[in-house]
């Protein structure tokens, strides 16, 4: 292959840098406010998780697994969580969990309205869909860069990066769920003289709920994946443990931490899926 001519250059990295700098200088107050809000939510969630004794968490998980699935699942799930404790990773796991929970919460707050907007407005759909596609193909650690730029190191940028990475499936599934509500059901709603708000809250949203639950599940799993990578920008947690092991070439430690992450992911996935199925049955 012949090299691309040196004289043909048009780089977008420069303007992006300028743009980010401009944002940093002019929106400093905004970033500070976001930072403070996330921190206080973080502390609140962490506080709640920390006052729960470890055995209460494990028993609760056992009970959830038992009720949602069966006795065996209850045992397997709680043993997995117990193992994380045995590995000496309990506190780190709580930390990881807090970041995941907050990211999912923020995703819900932002993602649901955006998904609904996409289902309602063709223009919004045409603008946002390609953005979602781009976001979902972007390598995950690219999100670390703006996170660090805007929020420095620590848990706040970790939440930011994790949310940005994890939010697309929730938006997409909210949109799909609402856009795909059976046409006749929509017409039935209209034919009884529902207002748009009644259509949304009494028909479209409840009908889309199972798709949205799937979205929440996927978003949680993506957040789990990202929170590990976020350890590169100073998020504490199990991911950090993996990172340290890589640096020190401690295979055993690294494997153990990796396994703990897998366990945590499985536990979250099972519980959320079970809850989704249960919700569908009883709704």
């Amino acid at each position, binding site marked *: 292959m012949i090299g691309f001519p040196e004289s043909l250059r048009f780089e977008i990295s420069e303007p992006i840098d300028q743009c980010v700098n401009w944002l940093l200088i002019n929106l400093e107050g905004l970033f500070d406010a976001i930072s403070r809000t996330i921190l206080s939510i973080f502390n609140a969630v962490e506080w709640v998780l920390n006052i729960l004794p470890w055995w209460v968490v494990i028993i609760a998980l056992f009970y959830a697994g038992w009720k949602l699935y069966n006795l065996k699942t209850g045992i397997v799930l709680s043993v997995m969580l117990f193992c994380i404790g045995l590995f000496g990773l309990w506190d780190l796991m709580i930390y990881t969990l807090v970041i995941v929970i907050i990211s999912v919460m923020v995703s819900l707050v932002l993602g649901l309205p955006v998904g609904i907007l996409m289902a309602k407005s063709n223009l919004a759909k045409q603008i946002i869909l390609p953005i979602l596609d781009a976001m979902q193909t972007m390598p995950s650690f690219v999100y670390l860069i703006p996170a660090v730029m805007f929020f420095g190191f620590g848990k706040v940028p970790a939440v930011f990066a994790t949310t940005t990475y994890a939010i697309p499936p929730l938006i997409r599934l909210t949109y799909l769920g609402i856009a795909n509500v059976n046409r*006749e059901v929509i*017409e*039935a709603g209209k*034919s*009884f*003289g529902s207002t748009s708000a*009644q259509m949304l809250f*009494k028909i479209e949203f409840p009908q889309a*709920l199972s798709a949205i639950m799937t979205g929440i599940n996927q978003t949680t799993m993506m957040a789990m994946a990202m929170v590990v990578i976020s350890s590169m920008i100073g998020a504490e947690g199990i991911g950090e443990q993996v990172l340290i092991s890589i640096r020190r070439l401690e295979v055993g430690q690294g494997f153990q931490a990796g396994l703990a992450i897998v366990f945590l992911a499985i536990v979250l996935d099972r519980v959320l899926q079970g809850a989704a199925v249960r919700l569908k049955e009883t*709704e």
Partner: protein
Amino acid sequence: MPKNKIEVKNVTLVFGKNRERALKMLDEGKSIQEIREKTGTAVGVNNVSLEIEEGEMFVIVGLSGSGKSSLIRCMNMLNVPTRGELLIDGENICEYDKKQLRALRRHKVSMVFQHFGLLSHRTVLKNVEYGLEVQGMADDERRQKALAAIEMVGLKGWESYFPRQLSGGMKQRVGLARALTNEPELLLMDEPFSALDPLIRRDMQTELLSIEDYMDKTIVFITHDMNEAFRLGDRVALLKDGELVQVGKPGEFFENPANDYVRSFIEDVDKSRILRVKTVMRQPVVQAVDKDYVTDVVRRLKENERDFCYVTNDKKELLGYVELETLMDVNQGDVSSFIVKEFESITRNSFLAETYSKLDESNYDVAVVDNKNCLRGVINHEDVVSALSG
């Protein structure tokens, strides 16, 4: 003269982007196939005018794609006519604003859907309550009305079930109850029974007829099944390619088919040309001889809840009929002097198709006689239609 509930005036409905051009091509007399190819638009309804009377069961029938749904959905503005007017109680609903339209849909017009259109996340009760719920009616009041509607369609005891736990027939009963709770004046039913199997379908037809009878609503009913159309309809409109081919009482379709298309359509109902009256008629529940005592006949009429019966002489020759009303005031003598001698009768060997003109008008049992004018049985509209659709 009953007043018109709905007037459809030259309604044309075009789907797609190039509507103006499609309308123009329609005016030039181009076929809708040609319009579809040239403009990419679909003509759903093509210049249809209809009048639907208050209290009438009006059936729209046609093949798939003939524009039945397109037309009925104009009647609550789920489809907005591209051209023409649609009047309900004399008001052009095409000009309604959002608020007026909501009021129309909440209080005057309800719809039943082919695939039920039930809200799968709500119980039967909650589904039936929906129409009242969006009106903001208080919980207790709407629950009561919903329960009454549920009972009327025969679903009592199923209130807390979810739609997926019900059979097709039951789901459509829910759909019907939901439409009835609003106490609409006008009920739109788009192929409500097409997704049901034949037996359930017959049940539902009978039930609908009795509900209609009892509540006296105007019903617009859609079907692609000619038998169903004739069984249910006071009047029937046949659509083809979005155009009205013929409208009239069922009998008129057989007597004067508008064209070959109608003829080919009613050929499906060829039973009417095969079945003879004698295979369908019933024995009269009450029957009298001219020498019977009035008191005796009155007692038998009352016992059987009849308001008239046919009278023969002792050779079974038909003389006429007596009415309970006239006999009530008399308490002695025989019935011979009270016989009404002007009446319709049908010969037992005529084809069912030939009975329509006599049976349509009245829901009375009409006398069936043989060629010696002896009474052999009675028949009514219901008998004929059920024989033809069974």
